[in-house]
């Protein structure tokens, strides 16, 4: 039994940590956010050169051949710098779906361009009415000359403004909520009928509303067979949730360390405020929440490894852990974020201090791919309703 990252994972983790420490301070980040595109293409190219964009892809496509554990190692460090470059949307989500797809021609064509940094991507799944239910798809895909004609609107498409390509979920059959009948298409951002309206989100990132009007997509752009899109989504979802949780963990550990450090220097009533027991116990509580959250992430990782190694492993238990992980991150994130602001006092409310920016990213992670209540309900269904 061990809970250590491998030597290879430690190397990549250290390389991300060095980048965040040496090149990604809060002022650099602020300049990037205020730029027109809201991300740094230079840094993205650096990520490509350092091999970070290749992590989840198979070696036959030029990838690193990594597992979700490798992704977690990268994401935790990116979280410590609240890096806004679209690693989650391009590598974890778009890349994750692509990587798990069974369309090898498509993979051969696209994956190398993700790895070399020339293609950014995003998974366009959300719709006005869908909230967190990914199978609630009203966007339609109807067979036509040349493939399928897509019509509909996708909302809160993460990094949609910078993406060259989208993976779009569209309904090829069934009713609006049916799990079966959803298909995933690779759609070019420059295709006729695609319009992208980009906006800023509170965490310093960007999202977009993507409208599809009579967009014709060739059949060979399907990620899986027609109607089997949700199977692919379900397969990749645990990795997406674990990667996001690792980012949250990096943020929470950073917030705790900044807050404890501040409490040792901030003087009130003639003493550092960290000498007051009422604050000490609250900082112990946030420390414990962070440790518990880390344990839940490691639990999910160990079970993911077991499921990958052995087809007969208990995937039900694994899914329970993954839902519990997202809930745990949301609870701990809220507590740690709010306590960081409270213990800093007035300065914690300022835009100038980094605290608030970490908190806003945690809040965004909570509502990405299902919030606390959504996942707790899923957990309860898996755990209790059957009995």
């Amino acid at each position: 039994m061990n809970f250590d990252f491998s030597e290879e994972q430690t190397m990549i983790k250290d390389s991300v940590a060095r980048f965040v420490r040496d090149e990604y301070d809060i002022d650099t980040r602020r300049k990037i956010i205020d730029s027109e595109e809201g991300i740094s293409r230079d840094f993205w190219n650096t990520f490509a050169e350092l091999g970070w964009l290749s992590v989840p892809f198979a070696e036959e496509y030029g990838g690193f051949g990594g597992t979700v554990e490798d992704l977690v190692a990268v994401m935790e460090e990116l979280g410590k710098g609240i890096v806004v470059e679209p690693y989650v949307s391009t590598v974890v989500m778009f890349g994750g779906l692509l990587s798990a797809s069974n369309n090898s021609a498509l993979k051969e064509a696209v994956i190398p361009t993700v790895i070399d940094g020339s293609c950014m991507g995003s998974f366009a799944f959300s719709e006005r009415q869908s909230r967190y239910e990914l199978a609630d798809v009203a966007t339609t895909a109807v067979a036509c000359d040349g493939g399928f004609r897509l019509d509909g609107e996708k909302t809160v498409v993460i990094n949609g403004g910078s993406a060259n390509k989208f993976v779009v979920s569209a309904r090829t059959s069934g009713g609006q909520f049916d799990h079966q009948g959803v298909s995933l298409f690779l759609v070019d951002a420059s295709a006729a009928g695609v319009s992208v309206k980009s906006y800023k989100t509170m965490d310093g990132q960007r999202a977009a509303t993507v409208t599809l009007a009579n967009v014709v997509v060739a059949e060979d752009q399907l990620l899986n067979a027609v109607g089997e899109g949700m199977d692919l989504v379900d397969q990749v979802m645990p990795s997406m949730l674990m990667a996001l949780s690792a980012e949250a963990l990096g943020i929470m550990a950073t917030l705790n360390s900044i807050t404890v450090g501040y409490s040792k220097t901030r003087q009130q009533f003639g003493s550092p405020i960290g000498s007051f027991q009422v604050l000490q116990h609250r900082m112990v509580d946030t420390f414990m929440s962070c440790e518990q959250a880390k344990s839940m992430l490691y639990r999910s990782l160990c079970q993911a490894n077991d499921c990958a190694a052995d087809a007969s492993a208990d995937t039900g238990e694994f899914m329970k852990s993954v839902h519990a992980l997202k809930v745990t991150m949301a609870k701990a994130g809220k507590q740690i974020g709010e306590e960081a602001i409270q213990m800093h006092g007035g300065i914690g409310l300022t835009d100038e201090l980094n605290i608030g920016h970490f908190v806003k990213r945690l809040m965004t992670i909570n509502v990405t791919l299902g919030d606390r209540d959504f996942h707790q309900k899923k957990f309860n269904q898996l755990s209790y309703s059957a009995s």
Partner: protein
Amino acid sequence: MDINFSAEDLAFRDEVRDFFATEFDAETAQNLSGVQTASYKPAIVSWQKKLHAKGWIAPGWPTEYGGTGWSATQKFIYETERGAAGIPDVVPFGLKMVAPVIFTFGTEEQKARFLPSILSSDDWWCQGYSEPGAGSDLAALTTSAEYAGDNYLVNGAKIWTTFAQYADWIFCLVRTTKDMRKQQGISFLLIDMKTPGITVKPIVTIDGKHSLNEVHFENVLVPRDNLIGEQDKGWTYAKALLAHERTGMAEVADSKRMLRTLKQRATEEVNGGQAMINDPVFQLRLSDIEMELMALEYTELRVFASMAGGGMPGPESSLLKIKGTEISQAIHELQLQLAGSYGGALQGSLTGEELGHDYAGEARGKYMYGRAATIYGGSNEVQRNVIAKAVLGL
């Protein structure tokens, strides 16, 4: 990352599991269910003697004194299997508390004199630490031991002494020198409970039961040979023991078993014709606890893995104690809630059948006495002080 045990360790797990399944019978379980009953002491002693005969009574001891020689992993597996099977831990005061102090700091003569009867469960020990004026602030203790001739003359009172009514011996922290800093001047003394001048007074707790006591000392003569280590250095020995005590307090396996029972009962309890397990509000309360426990299980494994790798249980053990006790209290609370109005019914001479409910009394008892878990072994507030200082550097 890898959570799996080796084939060898799995074989050991099966051996432990089989032993518990065959040797811990229903009658033993029944006799051990209430500490206040006359059957408790003979039942636990007889169970401990079975473990002794098997050679498994003292996993924490060095082999030369009767320890098992198990690896850290085997010890962990043993404790996990014990909790999962619902088998009570050995009475800790002799085997887990005073014995490590004796074999670490005692003389050869003391080891030969005390360890064998602890190992065989022929002597029952209790712990004389807390006093009416020294609870969380243990070093404020005032029970005095004046050196006179070859003896110490002990005067004072100890309180919250679990099972003093059964004990043959008590290990005490006593003040031997008054004008030193309060952690100094304390000594570690072993006292025969049959010595004249000792009185034990029962304390009935809010679950209506008697396991706690006051122990009064009036001019009690204790031979100098019963002093552990050096006079005035007892605090150091006691501190070494406290860290030992805290590591065993996460009780994850016990909590997992209680949670399983709770879920089973929630399928049988109904409200408006619906099983409580299907009630969405009840489900939320249940999953809040279950998820904390899932995380704690891995926190415990992380601490264990670092110990197995040669590390020492550090201040993380305080985290295990805080979270472990909070979770077990939360399970007790939900168990009592599930019992509904029956939770308040004192069964008395009625059977469960006559009362209309079978586990309510047990649930209430566990909830009431379970409040102790966040107080004893260093209150959870003291544990937070420990983490603030040792981990956060505050």
